[in-house]
C-alpha cells in the first residue's frame, strides 16, 4: 500500500461525523443510505447535531437511529409526524425531522401527515418515495405506478380496482400551513447535490419558523424491484420521474 497517499489533502470522500461508524443494513445501491448520508452532512455542516431530534419510521429506515448520531425516537408505523408534533411542541428551539417511507407517510400515516402539515408544524419531513413497500418485501405502496408489479399487484397495478398513485406532496401544496415542498432524487450525483441544498433550506425555514417543510426523494428499491442498482436507477429516471417530476412544488415565497 502507498501509505503516503493517505493524507487529508488527498481525501475525496468521508463520512460525516454525524453518521456513526457502523455498517448499514440497507441493500446495495439502495437510496436510503445516500439520503442518510446527505441528511447527516447537512446537520454536520450546519452544526446543529446537538440540538436536533429525529424520528424514525417503521419501514426499511426503522433503524435510522443506529446510524444517525442525533437524538432519535422510533415511531409506530405512520405516526412519525405525530411524534414530530409532540417533540417540537415541547422542545420548540430544537430542530425536528421525521424520516418516512411512502407506506408510512402516505398510506397508514396519511392523516398524521396532512394534519401536521395543515397545522403548520415547524418540522421537516424527509419522504422516501420508492414506489413500494421495502421492509415487508415488495407489496404495493400508495405510490406504486399504474401497471407496476408488486407482490400484491402481481399483474401490475390496476387503477380500476387498486386506485391511482397518491401524489401526496402536490396534495399538501394547497395547505396554508405548508412552507416548503420540493421533490428530489439521488440517482445521479448532481441530484444528490441538489437534495443537499434542499435539506439545508428545510432546516433554515424551520429555524425561521415558517411552517411545515417536506422534501420528497424519489428513489429505488433494487431488491424489491428485482433489478440491479443501476437498472433500478434507470427505472426511476424513465418511469418514476415522469409521474413524480423533480423540482420545487411550493416555496415560502408562495406560502
Amino acid at each position, binding site marked *: 500500500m502507498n501509505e503516503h497517499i493517505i493524507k487529508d489533502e488527498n481525501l475525496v470522500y468521508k463520512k460525516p461525523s454525524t453518521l456513526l461508524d457502523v455498517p448499514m443494513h440497507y441493500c446495495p445501491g439502495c437510496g436510503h443510505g445516500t439520503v442518510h448520508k446527505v441528511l447527516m452532512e447537512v446537520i454536520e455542516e450546519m452544526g446543529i447535531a446537538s440540538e436536533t431530534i429525529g424520528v424514525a419510521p417503521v419501514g426499511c429506515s426503522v433503524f435510522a*437511529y443506529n446510524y*444517525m448520531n442525533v437524538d*432519535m*425516537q422510533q415511531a*409506530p408505523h405512520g405516526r412519525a409526524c*405525530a411524534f414530530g*408534533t409532540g417533540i417540537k411542541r415541547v422542545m420548540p428551539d430544537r430542530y425536528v425531522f421525521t424520516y418516512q417511507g411512502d407506506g408510512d407517510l402516505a398510506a397508514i400515516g396519511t392523516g398524521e401527515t396532512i394534519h401536521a402539515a395543515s397545522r403548520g408544524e415547524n418540522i421537516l419531513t424527509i419522504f422516501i418515495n420508492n414506489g413500494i413497500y421495502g421492509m415487508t418485501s415488495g407489496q404495493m405502496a400508495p405510490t406504486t405506478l399504474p401497471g407496476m408489479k408488486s407482490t400484491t399487484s402481481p399483474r401490475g397495478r390496476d387503477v380500476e380496482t387498486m386506485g391511482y398513485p397518491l401524489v401526496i406532496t402536490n396534495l399538501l401544496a394547497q395547505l396554508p400551513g405548508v412552507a416548503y415542498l420540493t421533490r428530489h432524487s439521488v440517482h445521479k450525483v448532481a441530484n444528490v447535490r441538489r437534495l443537499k441544498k434542499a435539506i439545508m433550506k428545510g432546516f433554515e425555514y424551520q429555524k425561521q419558523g415558517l411552517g411545515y417543510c417536506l422534501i420528497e426523494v424519489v428513489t429505488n428499491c433494487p431488491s424489491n424491484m428485482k433489478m440491479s442498482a443501476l437498472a433500478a436507477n434507470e427505472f426511476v429516471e424513465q418511469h418514476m420521474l415522469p409521474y413524480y417530476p423533480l423540482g420545487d412544488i411550493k416555496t415560502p415565497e408562495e406560502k
Partner: protein
Amino acid sequence: MGEIRLMKGNEALAEAMIRVGCDAYFGYPITPQSEVLEYLSEQDPMSRTGMVILQAESEVAAINMVHGAAGCGKRVITTSSSPGISLMQEGISYMAAAEIPCVIANVIRGGPGLGTIQPSQSDYFQAVKGGGHGDYKLIVLAPSTVQEMVNHVKQGFELAEKYRTPVMLLADGAIGQMMEKVELFPQIPRKKDSELPQEWATTGRGDRKLRNFITSLNIQPEKMEEINLHLQEKYRTIEANEVQYEANNLEGAEYIFTGFGMGARICNKAAELGRAKGYKIGVIRPITLYPFPVAIYNDVASKVKGIFDVEMNAGQMVEDVKLAVSGKTRVEFYGRMGGMIPSPEEILENFEKIFIK
C-alpha cells in the same frame, strides 16, 4: 389546607394536570370526557404555566404526540373514553416497551362498540391485562371520588417517573361528570430543560457524545427476551411496593363486598344498609387495579363466608379476586352493563338472594 372547590371530575382532572406541572396535553374530544380539553382550552395553561395543549386529529395521533413529547422527558398526559382508548393501544404498547413515563386517563363509557355515553367499568380487562399487544403492564389507578381524580394525577406522574412506565387512571363517566368538593394541591413548577433525564430522553444531544434513542424494536429474539425479562422484573418490583387499597369493617366480618371506583362507593352504601339489617359486612376497594391487592383478599378469605364482587360490567375484576383467594372462599358477582349503574338497595337484595336465603 389547599384551595377548596366544587368541581366536575373531568375539570378537576384537567386542573390537576396544570398544577402537577404538566408540559403537554394531547387529546381528541369524546363524551363523557370532553370537558377535559374544554376546561384546558378555557384556562389557557400556556399563559398559566407554559403548558402546551393541542387538539389532535385522532386518538391515534394524540397518543403518538404523547410518545414524542414524553420521549423528551417531559410530563405529558392524554385522556379519552373507551373507543378512543382502544385506538391508542398500539402507542401505549410502544411506550410500555420503550419505558416512557406518561399518564393516560380513561373515563369509561359503556361498550362494546360505539355503545353508550353512560358510565361503565367495562374496560377493566383492557387496562389491567394489557390492552395492546405484547407482555406489558400499566400501573392502573382507579379513582372513586373527584378528589381522587386530582390526587391520582399527581400520584400517577410520580409512579410513571419512578418506574419509567405509562400509568392509567381508570375512571368512569359518572366520576367524570359529577361535582364534588375537592382540595387542590398548590402549583408544582414545570421541570426546567436542564432537569430532563439525560440518561434516556431525546432532548437533543447537547454535550453528550453519543445520541439517545428510543425504540421498542429488537430484531434478535435473544435481545427482545432480555428486554421482556427486564420489564417483568420491573413489574414484580411494582407488585411488591405499590399496592394500594382501602378496607373497612373487616374485623369480625362474615362477608366482604368489593368493587372499584364508583362501583366501590355504591358497595359501601350497600354494606351500610346490610349492616343496619344485622349482616356483618366488610368492604375492600382496590385503589391500584394493577398491582392488584392480592394479599388482603387472600388474608380475609379464610375468615369469611364469602366475597361479593360488584362491578359495572359483566364480571372482570372478579377474576382477579378469584385468583387472589385461590378457592379459599366463595366468590360471587353482581354487575350491570351498558351504562347502567346498580343501586345500593339492588346490590343488597342480590347479596341476600345469593348468600343468605
